[in-house]
C-alpha cells in the first residue's frame, strides 16, 4: 500500500538500484556512488578535524564558542559535499531517460534518492563531529553530556542540510528551463566552493555569534525546505529527461577574433582549431565542468590573500598576496590533469584521422587556449584590483610577475595532459593528484619565501625575475609540447604513435 504516495515495492527497487550503482561506480565523481572514495574522504576529514579539535581544545575557549565553530565547519563541509552529491544524483539525464516512462511517482523516486543521500550523512556527520565532541570534554566548562549534545545537534544539522540541498535542486528543477538546468546546478555548486574563500573569516565571526536567533530560524527553515521538497515530486523526471535536448542554440554564432591570429602565428589552421575547440568545450562540456568545479576548492588559498590585498609586498611586511600567482598556476596544473576527460570522448576518432603534422600544431593551440583562458584573465583582474590599492608601478610589476609565474606553470602543466582535450573517458580517480598537490605545496612554499625575502626588496629584481620566467617558459615550451604531443598520440592509439619526441620542424598549413 502506498504511503504518502510512496510505493513500497518500487521504493525498495530504486533504493537497491542506487546502492547497486554505488558499488559499481556507475556515475562519475559521485562520492555516494563510490564506497571507497566515501570512506577515504570521511577518514581524511576525521583526521583533519581531530587535529583541529585537539589544538583548539588545548587553547581552552568557552565551550559555546568551541561548539559553534565546529558546528559551523561541519555544516559548511556537509553543505559543499551534499550540494555536489545532490546535483550529481538528481540532475542525471541518463537515469531520467531510463526511468521517466516507468510508473514511478515523484514521491517514490525522491524517497529513494533521499535514502541514497542519507548514506553520505552516515559517514560524514560522525567524521566531522565525533572528534570535536570527544575533545570538547577537555574544556573546563564542558559537562559530561557535551559529546552527546554536540553529536545530536550535528546530526540534526546534517539532515537539515540534506533537506535544504534537495529543496534547492527541487526549486531549480521547477523554475529553471530544462535547457539551462545543468548550468544552473553547476553554478550553485561553484558558489558553494567559492565559499571556501570566506571560510576562515566566517569561522572567526561564528565564535562571537549568539546561537539563539539561529534556533528561532530553524522551524521556518525546516518548513520551507519540506515545502520546496515537494517540487521534486511533481514532474521532476520529465524535466530532467528534457535536459537531453541540451541548451538552445545561440541565434548568432560568434566568430573568434583571436582565432585568425593564432592560425597566423601559432601553427596554422590546426592550432586555431585546437584553440577554438578547447576554449569552447572548457565552457560547454558538462563532465569537464563537473570536475573543474571540484577544483574550485583551490580557491581557499585565495581567501587570506584577498583579505590582505591592501598590504603592498614591497613594504617588507609579509603578505599572503604572494600566494596568488601560484594559486592560479596550481589551478592550471590541476586543470591539465582533468583536461583529457570529456562527456563526448567517443568523438576522438576524429583526431585519429588527422594528418600527423596537424597534431603537432594542434597541441600548440591547446596550450594557447589554456594560457589565454586560465592564466591571462585572472591576472588582468588582479592588476585591476591591485591598481586600486597600490602605487601603479608596484601593481603593474606584481601583475607582470604573476603572469610570468602563471606562464611557467602553464608550460610545466603540459606534460601532465595525458591525451588531447576531451578525448578520454573522465578519469574517476586521479592517482597523481595527491603527489602533484604535495609537490606543488612544497614548491609554492619555497617560491613564496623567495619572493618575500629576496625578490620583493627592489622593483628591478622583480622585473628581472618576471623576464627570466617568461624566457624560461619560452625555452622549455617546445620540449613540453613535444611530450604532450607524444602522450596524445599514445592515448589516441595512432598507428604512428611513438613515445619518442618528434622534431617540431614543420607546421601543418
Amino acid at each position: 500500500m502506498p504511503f504518502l504516495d510512496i510505493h513500497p515495492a518500487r521504493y525498495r527497487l530504486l533504493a537497491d538500484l542506487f546502492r547497486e550503482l554505488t558499488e559499481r561506480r556507475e556515475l562519475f565523481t559521485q562520492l555516494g556512488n563510490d564506497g571507497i572514495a566515501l570512506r577515504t574522504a570521511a577518514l581524511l576529514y576525521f583526521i583533519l578535524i581531530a587535529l583541529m579539535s585537539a589544538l583548539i581544545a588545548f587553547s581552552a575557549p568557552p565551550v559555546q564558542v568551541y561548539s559553534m565553530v565546529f558546528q559551523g565547519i561541519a555544516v559548511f563541509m556537509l553543505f559543499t559535499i551534499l550540494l555536489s552529491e545532490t546535483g550529481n544524483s538528481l540532475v542525471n539525464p541518463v537515469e531520467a531517460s531510463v526511468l521517466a516512462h516507468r510508473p514511478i511517482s515523484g514521491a517514490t523516486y525522491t524517497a529513494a534518492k533521499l535514502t541514497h543521500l542519507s548514506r553520505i550523512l552516515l559517514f560524514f556527520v560522525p567524521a566531522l563531529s565525533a572528534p570535536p565532541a570527544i575533545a570538547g570534554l577537555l574544556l573546563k566548562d564542558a559537562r559530561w553530556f557535551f559529546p552527546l549534545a554536540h553529536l545530536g545537534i550535528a546530526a540534526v544539522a546534517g539532515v537539515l542540510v540534506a533537506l535544504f540541498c534537495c529543496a534547492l535542486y527541487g526549486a531549480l528543477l521547477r523554475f529553471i528551463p530544462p535547457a539551462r538546468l545543468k548550468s544552473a546546478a553547476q553554478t550553485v555548486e561553484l558558489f558553494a566552493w567559492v565559499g571556501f574563500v570566506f571560510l576562515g573569516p566566517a569561522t572567526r565571526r561564528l565564535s562571537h555569534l549568539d546561537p539563539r536567533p539561529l534556533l528561532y530560524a530553524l522551524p521556518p527553515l525546516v518548513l520551507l525546505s519540506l515545502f520546496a521538497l515537494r517540487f521534486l515530486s511533481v514532474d521532476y523526471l520529465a524535466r530532467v529527461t528534457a535536459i537531453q535536448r541540451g541548451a538552445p542554440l545561440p541565434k548568432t554564432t560568434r566568430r573568434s577574433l583571436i582565432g585568425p591570429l593564432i592560425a597566423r602565428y601559432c601553427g596554422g589552421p590546426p592550432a586555431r582549431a585546437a584553440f577554438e575547440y578547447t576554449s569552447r568545450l572548457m565552457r560547454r562540456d558538462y563532465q569537464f565542468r563537473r570536475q573543474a568545479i571540484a577544483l574550485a576548492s583551490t580557491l581557499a588559498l585565495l581567501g587570506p590573500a584577498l583579505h590582505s590585498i591592501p598590504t603592498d609586498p614591497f613594504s617588507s611586511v609579509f603578505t599572503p598576496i604572494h600566494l596568488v600567482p601560484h594559486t592560479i598556476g596550481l589551478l592550471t596544473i590541476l586543470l591539465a590533469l582533468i583536461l583529457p576527460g570529456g562527456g563526448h570522448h567517443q568523438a576522438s576518432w576524429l583526431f585519429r584521422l588527422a594528418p600527423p603534422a596537424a597534431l603537432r600544431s594542434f597541441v600548440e593551440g591547446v596550450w594557447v587556449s589554456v594560457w589565454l583562458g586560465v592564466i591571462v584573465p585572472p591576472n588582468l583582474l588582479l592588476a585591476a584590483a591591485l591598481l586600486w590599492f597600490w602605487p601603479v608601478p608596484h601593481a603593474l610589476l606584481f601583475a607582470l610577475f604573476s603572469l610570468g609565474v602563471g606562464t611557467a606553470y602553464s608550460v610545466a602543466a603540459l606534460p601532465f595532459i595525458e591525451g588531447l582535450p576531451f578525448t578520454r573517458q573522465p578519469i574517476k580517480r586521479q592517482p597523481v593528484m595527491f603527489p602533484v598537490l604535495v609537490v606543488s605545496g612544497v614548491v609554492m612554499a619555497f617560491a613564496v619565501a623567495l619572493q618575500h625575502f629576496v625578490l620583493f626588496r627592489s622593483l628591478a629584481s622583480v622585473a628581472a625575475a618576471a623576464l627570466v620566467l617568461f624566457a624560461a617558459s619560452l625555452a622549455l615550451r617546445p620540449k613540453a609540447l613535444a611530450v604532450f604531443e607524444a602522450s596524445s598520440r599514445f592515448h589516441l592509439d595512432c598507428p604512428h604513435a611513438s613515445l619518442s619526441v618528434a622534431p617540431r620542424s614543420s607546421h601543418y598549413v
Partner: protein
Amino acid sequence: MMPMPPPVVVFRDVSFRYAHQDVLHSLSFELRPGEVVGLLGPNGAGKSTTIKIITGILAAHVGTVQVFGLSLPERSLDVKQSIGYVPEAALLFESLTGQEFLELCGRLHLVDEDRLQHRIAELLETFGLASDRSTRLDAYSKGMRQKILIAAALLHDPALILLDEPLTGLDVNASVLVKDLIAALAAAGKTVLYSSHVLDVVERVCDRAIIIDNGAIVADDSPSNLIAAAGAATLEGVFQKLTGAGAPAAAAARIIHALHR
C-alpha cells in the same frame, strides 16, 4: 453494426514548445486498438516529441491528450503502467547486465517474478542475447542495446507500444524479426505507434501513416491511399512531395560544386 471501439490515444489540438522553439502546432489524431501507425517526418519535425507526450514524459502546453481514456499529464502514472516505449537514444545503466536491466524494468512494472523470469529468458533467447545475459551493458554493441530496449518495452505486456526508431543498429535478421513482431503484436490486439525514417518498412507493416512536417500533420491515411493520392510510386515519393525536400539531384550537384570552390 458493431460499435467502434474507443480510441487508445486521442491527440486533440496539441501544441508544444521547447524554450525558444515551437515543435508541435495544433496536432490532432487518434489511434485505434490493434492499429499499427507509422509516424513519419523529416528530422526535427516533432515525431519524438509527440511520442514523449503520449508516454507522459513531456506535457502538452495546449490541447488534450488522452491514453486509454485517461487524461495526460494528470494520470501519467496509470498510463505509464500500460505502455511500452523504445526511446530513440539507447541510454542504459551501463554497469548493469542485460538480465539485471530487464529484471529492473519488469519489476518496476510489478510483473510477477516467475512470469518475469520466463519472459526474460524467452526474449533474450529470441533476440540471440541468451549467452550475453550476464554481460554488462557497457560491453554490448549498439544493436544489442537496441534489442535490450525492445525487450524491456515488451516485458510487462503493454497494450500500447511506442517505437521511436526501433531498427537503429539492428542487423538484418533482427530487423526482420522486429517487423514480424510488430505485425504479431497488432494481431494480438496491441496498438503500435512506429516512428521511423525507413519508409519501405512503414509501407509494409503499417495500416496507417501520419506524416508530420514542422510540427503539423500534412498527411494521415493508409500508405496505399497516400501513394495513390500523390501519384507517386512509393511512400518515399509521397514523403518527398509532402515535406518539400526539393530536388535531391540539384542538392547533390550543389555540394559537389561547393567542394570544388
